């Protein structure tokens, strides 16, 4: 069965669960086999069979699945092969059914993991101890396989208890789900590949050396280590070929003999000993080779997936899910306004200069100048204002006063624009309380066109214009070039972080930026302002709250069985997707 067929099978089986999002997958083994046969036929399978299973509780279902899988495990050599190693190249797509909830949880967990990888990668050197320790922690939190368990005598037998197996399965399936979400644009693909590579590198570096040999063998990478005798013979050549290789390296470490075609970067720069068409690589460089191989495979696979995607996307249940995944911000969502009502409207202008990230400053400026903002800008800025603590009344007042100065009279405002502001605050329609946009969302979705002010200036502004703007905001020339360098390297959030550091005159921002409201809060923390949240309450000198701060999380509607806060976010953002047309 081809790759496309396999993927579609998973999702068709996941999708065909009737109207109840928590109905479970096919109720019989026979159906499973049929599903794997012909996906077109499987669509016609009687839905009533699925719902007749009844609504088992999540826990019971999981236990059921667990046991049935356990049976499958024993004596199932194919799965053994697939999960016999804790690290894999993700060459084979998964061939099984999972429930919709597992689908979501897996995907979200992996996304969290990748986001952690991204953040840590920005803050720490990728091979440093601190980085490894922090990533270790996240791995165990999210139940992904990371450490090879203390080895048994027989390494080949998966020293995997069911839990290790579960972890590897999760790793496997979640990777493939995210492929669907991240194959669609160049930006997404690049991001996904980068994080998966970093993840792979981290796990590969963790492998003890005999497991590396196993891994290479598994994956048909014919890289063999050279014997001690050969090492002795080549000692001189090996040492003079590479800056990093000394006599003791040759003695102590493994050297691999690799066809030169698989190590082009090392050949090109002449950083390695080449003889008879083979390069001799010290262990630490094998990682690079394997990573390059991984990158190539993943890149090709994503391109393939993108082409197959329309077929999967035709299923309406999956489309919003996948869309959401690629834009999901998996962290604090700033819907909990800790500082609600602490900001007065008079403070907004000075705050925009001091504590707004560049995107919001730009939007605010645009609003003040033309007394108008288009829809994209209203959403981005309006939600941001909600996030910094404006109440609905304040927001209405703010927007009205500005729009009225323009071409809109008070009546028209109340008719046309007030509704959407109330909508933002969850007071209209479905009453979902929208969350302010994260940086990811601003950067990746809805790029601005002519006349728009929204988006991320580091991503969407022409560098010349960006430079001028920064100059007008009195950023130092050296600071500007640093920012432009980061922009060139497509590190937009880092560029914004640098902007933060320069405008606050500090060396290190001390946080990893992924949300405009985070920028605001951090800035206020530094400046001791009213928008900082709970901590600053003690220092507060200015305006009394018009409403008491609301500490309890908003009760968001949505399927209650998904435990995380994020689950709630998933649902409400899904709705917003339908709205944002």
């Amino acid at each position, binding site marked *: 069965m081809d790759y496309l067929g396999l993927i579609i099978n998973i999702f068709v089986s996941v999708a065909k669960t009737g109207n109840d999002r928590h109905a479970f997958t096919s109720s019989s083994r026979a159906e499973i086999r049929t599903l794997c046969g012909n996906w077109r036929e499987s669509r016609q399978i009687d839905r009533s069979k699925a719902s007749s299973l009844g609504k088992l509780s999540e826990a019971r279902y999981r236990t059921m699945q667990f046991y049935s899988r356990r049976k499958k495990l024993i004596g199932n050599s194919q799965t053994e092969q697939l999960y016999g190693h804790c690290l894999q190249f993700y060459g084979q797509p998964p061939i099984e059914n999972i429930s919709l909830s597992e689908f979501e949880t897996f995907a979200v967990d992996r996304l969290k993991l990748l986001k952690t990888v991204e953040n840590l990668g920005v803050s720490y050197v990728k091979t440093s101890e601190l980085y490894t320790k922090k990533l270790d922690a996240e791995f165990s939190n999210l139940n992904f396989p990371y450490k090879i368990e203390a080895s048994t005598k027989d390494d080949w037998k998966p020293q995997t208890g069911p839990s290790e197996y579960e972890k590897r399965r999760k790793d496997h399936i979640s990777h493939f789900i995210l492929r669907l979400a991240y194959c669609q644009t160049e930006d997404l693909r690049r991001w996904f590949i980068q994080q998966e590579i970093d993840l792979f590198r981290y796990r590969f570096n963790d492998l003890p050396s005999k497991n590396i040999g196993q891994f290479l063998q598994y994956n048909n990478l014919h890289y063999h280590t050279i014997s001690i005798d050969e090492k002795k013979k080549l000692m001189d*050549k090996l*040492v*003079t*070929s*590479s*800056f990093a290789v000394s006599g003791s390296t040759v003695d102590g470490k493994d050297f691999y003999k690799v066809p*030169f*075609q698989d190590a*082009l*970067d090392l*050949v*090109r*720069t*002449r950083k390695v*000993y*080449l*003889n*008879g*068409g*083979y390069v001799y690589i010290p262990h630490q460089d094998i990682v690079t080779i394997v990573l390059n191989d991984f990158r190539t495979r993943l890149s090709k696979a994503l391109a393939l997936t993108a082409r197959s995607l329309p077929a999967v996307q035709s299923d309406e249940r999956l489309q919003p899910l996948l869309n959401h995944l690629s834009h999901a911000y998996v962290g604090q969502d700033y819907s909990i306004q800790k500082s609600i009502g602490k900001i007065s409207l008079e403070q907004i202008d000075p705050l925009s200069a001091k504590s707004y990230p560049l995107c919001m400053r730009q939007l605010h400026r645009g609003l003040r100048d033309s007394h108008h903002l288009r829809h994209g800008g209203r959403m981005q800025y309006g939600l941001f204002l909600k996030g910094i603590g404006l109440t609905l009344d304040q927001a209405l007042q703010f927007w009205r006063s500005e729009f009225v100065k323009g071409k809109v009279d008070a009546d028209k405002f109340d008719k046309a624009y007030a509704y959407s502001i109330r909508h933002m605050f969850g007071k209209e329609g479905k009453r979902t309380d929208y969350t302010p946009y994260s940086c990811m969302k601003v950067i990746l979705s809805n790029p601005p066109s002519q006349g728009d002010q929204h988006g991320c200036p580091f991503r969407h502004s022409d560098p010349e214009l960006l430079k001028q703007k920064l100059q007008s905001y009195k950023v130092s020339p050296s600071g500007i070039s640093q920012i432009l360098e980061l922009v060139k390297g497509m590190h937009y959030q880092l560029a914004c972080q640098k902007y933060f550091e320069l405008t606050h005159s500090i060396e290190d921002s001390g946080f990893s930026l992924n949300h405009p409201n985070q920028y605001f809060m951090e800035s206020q923390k530094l400046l001791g302002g009213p928008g900082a949240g709970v901590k600053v309450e003690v220092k507060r000198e200015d305006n009394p709250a018009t409403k008491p701060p609301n500490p309890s999380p908003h009760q968001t509607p949505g399927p209650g069985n998904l435990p995380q806060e994020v689950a709630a976010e998933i649902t409400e953002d899904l709705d917003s997707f339908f709205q944002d047309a």
Partner: protein
Amino acid sequence: MTTADYDQASLPDLLPLYYRRLFPFSQYHRWLNYGGVTKNYFQNREFSFTLKDDIYVRYQSFSTQNELEKEMQKMNPYKIDIGAVYSHRPNQHNTVKSGSFQALEKELVFDIDMTDYDDVRSCCSGADICPKCWTLMTIAIRILDRALRDDFGFRHCLWVYSGRRGVHCWVCDEAARKLSVAARSAVAEYLSLVKGGDETVRKVVLSDPIHPFITESLTVVENYFSQYALLGQDILGSKEAVDKVLALLPEDVRKKLLQYFQTEKNPEKRWDTIRSMAQDKRMTAKKGHYFEMEIMLQYCYPRLDVNVSKGVNHLLKSPFSVHPKTGRISVPIDLRELDRFDPFEVPTISLICEELDQPKTEEEQDDNMENENKKEAGERRKMRDYKRTSLAKYVKLFDNFLEEMAHSRKGEVLKNSGECNLNP
């Protein structure tokens, strides 16, 4: 006398003769067919012809040796280039869905051109060459051939005189033909040591550690340096030349040498001093100073055009093609006699056409008797014809090259079948 007077205007008369009686079609086809191992390898190969009046036609392809012969005899190309083996027949590329017509394989090629050395040779410039600067080609061939063989493991490298001012290398190993663009570029980069254009003064920069490849290459250069550079090019003789060398040295060394050169005029001695100064510096300073090596490499190390080597679909002048400006045939170079190769002894088309008209010698009449039984008259005559000319020894060289490749192929087949026998 080895060179009949060649005049470009006579090409229209000479070419038909050349293509009908001298061009080694049989060997040519044997080469590009590569033992018929891959289906349609010859048929999907692109050729391009430059015809009279600079008319250039691409995407020529042929089904058989015969077709190739007929076409070439009909068109009488001034120049022949060989391109890649494509996914479809090049002469039908317009019928193929756009995007599907792709270059799949080609020999790994290198082009060394004397004009790239103009900044370091004083005897000639531009398209001119002379026995003095030809040594640069000798050095280039030695260095590159060694690297391709020893470092990369390629065994079938055909070196060909380009006909005027350089040499080409065709690496015909199967692995070489299958290399990707990235791989070709990596190989070319590995082999590149001289970097920079007119604005760069110091074109070779060495630092610790010195890679074995560089050490090996230096060994070759050292064999020729004294004769070629110090004596032939006189790089430490005239003030002008000396200044150029000094420009490559660190400030303090330069000063000391200027002083020293006031009195010492002997180039060999001057060089020895530069050498020992470099060695001294290496003993004392923390960083490696390799300026004497850098000088040798800048003046002698091969300069190749990476772009020629990179592209899978790049077209390169074919062996046995005529060079329109000089009339010389692009002949294979015998590496066993490399130091004796003289580009000015390479036969021109006018020479070999003239040689065709010489009456038969007795030896040849005996040969004729032997060959009576072999093939049809036409073939026999052809086999006789080039043998009568100065082209003969070059075709023989080519034959040897092809024989070696055939031998290799057989070896591979045996090896594979041997493996099969062990694992029933």
